[in-house]
């Protein structure tokens, strides 16, 4: 099996690569590439993302044909895809970081700044916070409710269809921390930085 981590100059993806390689060992081949043919032929795709919504969308668009290839992969061919952090946020129709920017539009909704309640809550939301699992998700197999995951973000994804939310976390409000829509998975937290439980979630995705 091939799992491809999309390398589209979206910032620092070393930790994502290291964690997937750690979980995959020799069983699964982990590719790190922006090569469209390799993405097409892989079994699963991971879409990481760091920095701003706009910088990530711009970086995707800078690689000719990449968005179409990802659309084919996830929407037309319905193959498993995992978005991490801004990778998840880009599923939305639109994001408001820096300036209004169109997303991939895979899951209707928007990405806006977390309400810090007039400075009562620090932003970025950095650190370990707990999962409130609200719906069974394949990537949460054997993951206990209230497990701690590592977060670092100032913007949150607000999907229109709340039924797609698989877990939330409590901060200034209930922040969406994971979604599942058919073959499309996303986590706002960083499984690659969330210790053993994070690696377990990566393993669940690889094992789908």
């Amino acid at each position: 099996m091939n799992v491809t981590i999309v390398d589209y100059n979206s910032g620092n993806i070393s930790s994502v690569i290291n964690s997937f390689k750690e979980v995959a060992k020799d069983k699964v081949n982990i590719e790190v590439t922006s090569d469209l043919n390799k993405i097409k032929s892989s079994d699963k795709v991971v879409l990481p993302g760091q920095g701003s919504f706009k910088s990530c969308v711009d970086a995707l668009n800078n690689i000719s044909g990449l968005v179409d290839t990802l659309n084919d992969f996830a929407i037309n061919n319905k193959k498993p895809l995992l978005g991490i952090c801004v990778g998840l946020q880009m599923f939305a129709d639109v994001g408001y970081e820096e300036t209004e920017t169109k997303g991939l539009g895979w899951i209707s909704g928007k990405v806006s700044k977390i309400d810090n309640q007039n400075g009562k809550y620090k932003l970025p939301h950095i650190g370990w916070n707990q999962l409130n699992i609200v719906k069974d998700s394949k990537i949460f197999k054997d993951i206990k409710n209230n497990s701690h995951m590592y977060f670092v973000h100032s913007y949150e994804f607000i999907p229109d269809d709340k039924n797609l939310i698989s877990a939330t976390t409590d901060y200034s409000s209930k922040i969406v921390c994971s979604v599942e829509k058919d073959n499309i998975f996303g986590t706002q937290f960083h499984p690659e930085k969330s210790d053993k439980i994070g690696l377990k979630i990566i393993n669940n995705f690889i094992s789908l």
Partner: protein
Amino acid sequence: MLKNRIIPCLDVKNGRVVKGINFVDLQDAGDPVEQAKIYSDGGADEICFLDITASNENRDTIYDVVEKTSKKCFVPLTVGGGVRSVEDINKLLNCGADKVSINTAAVQNPEVVVESSKKFGSQCIVVAIDAKKNGDKWEIFTHGGRNNTGIDAIEFANKMEDSGAGELLVTSMDRDGTQVGYDIDLMSKISSMVNIPVIASGGVGNLDHLVDGIKLGKASAVLAASIFHYGKHSVKEAKEYLDSKGIPVRI
């Protein structure tokens, strides 16, 4: 709810840990990779490396350490010390650091903070503020605490938030190495003023100091070196103690 973080810090010189611990099961007490792994297995919420390598020819040793550590530890890794430019930050991130802390360069050339937070995202830019009390204010020191810039630490903290820092690592130079506790006034002043998380550093000698850093200093995270290095306390003990004092921690 969001937990307060405990961050053990390792001083690394020429690729080796300075002030090493004597863990019985440690094969190589000077190996930062092995020590980081012990901390992360013990429940450290993040790991911090401070590179204190003096000579330029040995600077590359830290990259090797970061690369190896990031393949073994799956909690966030912050690396600081000698970071001068956007290129230095890029190199550390590519080796597997999750955050880079900038000290002297942030004072001398704040553009580095602006540029790097735009390029890599605020989430990976930590500005390290070394401050020393002078009368009723605190002044910023650079070059590992050797140079007094006369810059007001509180104003500088504000400026760094505006420049795009994702977190501030605040060290009291008066307290560093003394084991008498954090400079609570300094921590709480900065933490109350900025909207980004503050990591308290400098002066921890016992577990109550960690409690004070969070409760009184209002820090989001507490960093300590020697209480963990010398095996006085494990990270696990620290967390259990904080938990017993009603501080939310990841256990």
